[in-house]
């Protein structure tokens, strides 16, 4: 035995020589990391700084000189501030403006006459002070000489500052500030209802012996296939002013909180249902047997075994629903009436009033609950331990006629609710003029006769969905592979993982607005993608990145961690392992990512509504715009087109999966 030293000799720790594989992997990670920074980090940062940007005319920064009638004999220089103090031409509050603010210089010269021989001199002394001569931007402290004809066309531009003024003015606008309360209230009510219903459904499907479970499972996920606007349209037809069941509301209006809650429950139900279903289906029969052998009552077993087992699922579902509702824009836009919601505020501020700073402020406010929900959910997930040990015995429910019948009845009720909404839209799309002329027609599908983009919008959507599915799956899977399988480079990997998790907390509207700020800046070298299909694809991939990333990560984690070591010992480059083993084994997950991205690209409105151009109008946006224009039936028709497409995509996905898997997954 050698005599061991007590402590490690000093000196630089060894560094492994990087193999070609390492360099390639790092290169890839840097590329995808840069993608996430450009597509997510940088736009959000720009938006944040935008929300803190204030614009104000700095009158002390402009100096004037006036000549006599001969055009000579200049007066002493005087600042605009002095002139204003004397004249009171512009009130102090009007000096605060937005980034587009303009102030005509003639305001400071009450005796200004067009076509007089008098000349004017102007200079901008302050840093960042500038003015426009027509459309020409001028700055600098050199005196510029203008005749009166030109002087008339001069406007001052505000200087940019940093501060919380935008937030102050937001909170001092009662209607806007009230939106916060409204949004939280709606999200909370919808969360409670959705999670309760979803739990009951998942409980029925896992703990009873009722028939047709597979069918219900399918029906309950239908809302994922339609834009969130569609339940709004269905509700208009069902309970609106001309609605079939209008009287059921006892004089209340569907436009407002009631409509928002019903619609929100509709479109968030599948998300909550799937999460809770997963949580409940990992039940260990031995716990139930233990409870039964201890003579525990059914209620006590439910309270002490069932609910605790699913509690992380419940919490997770609650956060997902809350975030979805508070950040959704389509539904309140259609059915919200005058009821202000945060996401709609962003839209109104930006599209309606072109007030980008205020849009940024609402975005930042909307980020708070979403980020909070995300953060709490992540922390809860970390505390979750594997409930299902390897030796668990799957729970098999015993028949109980009364309970099974009850479960079946409840599932039928919910299925009728979901299918009823879809059926209502289908009917609306096919009827000539609701409710006066109920003859069937295909006229509502003649989209080219309406505003909104026509059939071109539909084909654009298909194109977007296909491109998103293709590039999204590639980027996401490659990125997840780097996070999971690249060795070393630990900091880089955790930053990357953090970036990949972030989109979950960023509402679509916020992302879309951030993209405007970032890409619509002529100074940005990527400015050229603004208004193209590319930016829509980038935005959509980024918007739905997290779920896809987690799916890929889960699949990769199931791979033996030593595959890479074996390949290295056999002197095979990692890409050979990647294409021969990793990709084929993960193919089911990759296909799931692709269909997830496809369906969401078809239905999304929130982010792309800010980014489409006349060439890249989208079907989902067309639904919104046609509804806005009062063409509700065509809007329903377009919504149904999205639904058909997604159903078809799902079927094709199932076929491909079956065919491809039979060939590549023979080993399973």
């Amino acid at each position, binding site marked *: 035995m*050698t005599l*061991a030293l007590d402590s490690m000799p000093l000196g630089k720790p*060894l560094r492994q*020589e990087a193999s070609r594989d390492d360099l390639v992997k790092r290169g890839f990670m840097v590329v995808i990391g840069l993608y996430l920074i450009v597509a997510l980090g940088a736009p959000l940062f720009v938006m944040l700084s935008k929300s803190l940007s204030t614009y104000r005319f700095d009158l002390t920064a402009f100096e004037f000189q006036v000549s006599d009638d001969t055009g000579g004999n200049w007066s002493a220089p005087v600042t605009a501030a002095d002139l204003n103090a004397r004249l009171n031409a512009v009130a102090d509050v009007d000096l605060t403006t937005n980034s587009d603010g303009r102030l005509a210089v003639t305001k400071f010269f009450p005796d200004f006459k067009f076509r007089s021989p008098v000349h004017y001199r102007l200079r901008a002394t302050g840093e960042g002070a500038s003015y426009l001569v027509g459309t020409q931007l001028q700055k600098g402290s050199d005196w510029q000489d203008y005749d009166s004809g030109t002087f008339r066309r001069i406007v001052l531009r505000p200087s940019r500052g940093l501060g919380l003024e935008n937030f102050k003015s937001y909170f001092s606008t009662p209607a806007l500030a009230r939106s916060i309360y409204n949004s939280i209230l709606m999200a909370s009510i919808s969360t409670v209802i959705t999670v309760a219903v979803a739990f009951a459904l998942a409980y029925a499907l896992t703990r009873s012996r009722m028939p047709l479970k597979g069918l219900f499972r399918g029906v309950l996920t239908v809302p994922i296939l339609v834009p969130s606007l569609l339940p709004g349209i269905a509700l208009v037809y069902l309970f609106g002013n001309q609605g079939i069941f209008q009287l059921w509301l006892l004089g209340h209006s569907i436009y407002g909180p009631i409509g928002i809650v019903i619609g929100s429950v509709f479109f968030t139900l599948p998300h909550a249902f799937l999460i809770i279903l997963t949580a409940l289906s990992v039940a260990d029969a031995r716990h139930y047997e233990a409870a039964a052998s201890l003579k525990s009552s059914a209620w006590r077993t439910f309270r002490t075994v069932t609910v605790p087992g699913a509690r992380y699922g419940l919490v997770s579902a609650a956060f997902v629903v809350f975030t979805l509702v508070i950040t959704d824009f389509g539904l309140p836009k259609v059915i919200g009436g005058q009821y202000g919601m945060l996401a709609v505020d962003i839209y109104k501020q930006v599209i309606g009033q072109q007030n980008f700073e205020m849009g940024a402020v609402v975005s930042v406010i909307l980020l708070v609950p979403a980020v909070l929900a995300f953060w709490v959910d992540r922390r809860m997930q970390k505390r979750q331990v594997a409930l299902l040990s390897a030796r668990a015995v799957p729970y098999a429910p015993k028949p109980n006629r009364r309970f099974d019948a009850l479960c079946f009845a409840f599932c039928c009720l919910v299925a009728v609710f979901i299918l009823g909404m879809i059926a209502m839209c289908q009917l609306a799309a096919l009827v000539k003029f609701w409710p006066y002329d109920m003859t069937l027609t295909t006229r509502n599908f003649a989209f080219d006769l309406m505003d909104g983009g026509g059939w071109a919008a539909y084909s654009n959507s298909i194109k977007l969905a296909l491109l998103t599915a293709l590039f999204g799956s590639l980027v996401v899977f490659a990125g997840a592979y780097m996070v999971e399988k690249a060795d070393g480079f630990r900091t880089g990997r955790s930053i990357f993982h953090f970036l990949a998790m972030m989109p979950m907390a960023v509402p679509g509207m916020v992302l879309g607005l951030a993209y405007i700020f970032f890409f619509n800046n002529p100074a940005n070298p990527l400015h050229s993608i603004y208004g193209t299909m590319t930016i829509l694809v980038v935005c959509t991939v980024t918007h739905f990145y997290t779920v896809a990333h987690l799916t890929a990560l889960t699949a990769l984690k199931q791979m033996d961690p030593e595959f890479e070591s074996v390949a290295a*010992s*056999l002197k*095979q480059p990692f890409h050979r392992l990647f294409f021969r083993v990793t990709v084929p084994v993960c193919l089911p997950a990759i296909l799931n990512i692709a269909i997830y991205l496809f369906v969401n690209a078809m239905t999304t409105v929130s982010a792309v509504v800010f980014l489409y151009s006349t060439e890249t109008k989208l079907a989902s946006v067309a639904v919104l715009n046609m509804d806005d224009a009062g063409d509700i039936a065509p809007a329903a028709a377009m919504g149904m087109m999205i639904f058909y497409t997604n159903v078809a995509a799902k079927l094709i996905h199932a076929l491909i999966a079956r065919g491809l898997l039979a060939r590549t997954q*023979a*080993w399973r």
Partner: protein
Amino acid sequence: MRHALSVEPAPPTRPQPAETAPAYLDVSGLWKSYGDFVALRDISLSIRKGEFVCFLGPSGCGKTTLLRAIAGLDLQSRGAIVQGGRDISTLPAARRDYGIVFQSYALFPNLTIEQNIAFGLENTGRPRAEIAARVAELLDLVGLAAQAKKYPAQLSGGQQQRIALARAIAISPGLLLLDEPLSALDAKVRVHLRHEIKALQRKLGVTTIMVTHDQEEALAMADRIVVMNHGVIEQVGTPTEIYRHPKTLFVADFIGETNQFPARVTEGGAVEIGHSAFLCQTDGFAAGATATAVVRPVDIIPHGADLHAGMAAEKPTTPQNVIDAQVVEMEFLGMFWRTRLTAPRFGDRVLVADFSVNAVRRLRIEIGGAIQVEIPQERLLLFPRSA
């Protein structure tokens, strides 16, 4: 309780790599630390060409860390590794020369057995026919030619293990690394495979390092065993050396069973245990020093109720080391009886002895009976008392 060794390892009749064979793998001054935790502490080791070496130790002793450092999978913090005259200390795994088999086998699930074995051969410029021939040869070698078209999931654990081995040696590596290759298998399959691996290794003559925590496995397979504990090498030696002449108390205790007694070294090559003196090798100990005396249960020789009654198994070699004892407990373990004895000369301490079924029957050893046992002088080992 660890596996008891029923038989002492046989003397080395197996062909050993020549003692003088040049070193093939040289590890010197290797350290590995994770933050404050030191996983490997100044490890130096030399392995000869064609040798089968086992890294043996309890979990967390650093044996796998050492293997992964040699493989280039987890770089050591300090120290050098030279393989076949080439300094590989900081080379990435792909540029070293070894084949590896993991505990999980890490077979590619979507490739057939054939394709798995061929994985390292393809992409190297070898013609297809040559690859096919080599794969067939390897399949024959591990006796699984009939399974060539199957997928790993269709094979048993032992078969998967052999495929992983075939894949690792396909590229004829200079060094074969086995990371607990047998620990996921049933006991019977394990014993069977251990012979197969050993035979294969001898046939190929490939220098092999196997990591294991199973002392029986190490004793049965290794030419030399490296016993590790807490990140240091406790002893390097042949199985018999390790078993018969453990250099430290840890090695004595980890390999096989021991009785341990506090002892004091006296004049004239004896130690005092309890109230009496026993003859033993006291080299390296000064008179009056305290020590731990160790004797293995299998080394205790039973002489029956009365040594002079003519029923003794054999004549005691050291009569001074014969003591009178009382049988307190007997436990039947199949091939032998584990017996607990108390002896007045030992004070209150219990002495565990393993007696063959034969001896128990012949000497009529039974619970409550009196017995004389001998602790042979050369089997009583002394170790410095740990503080």
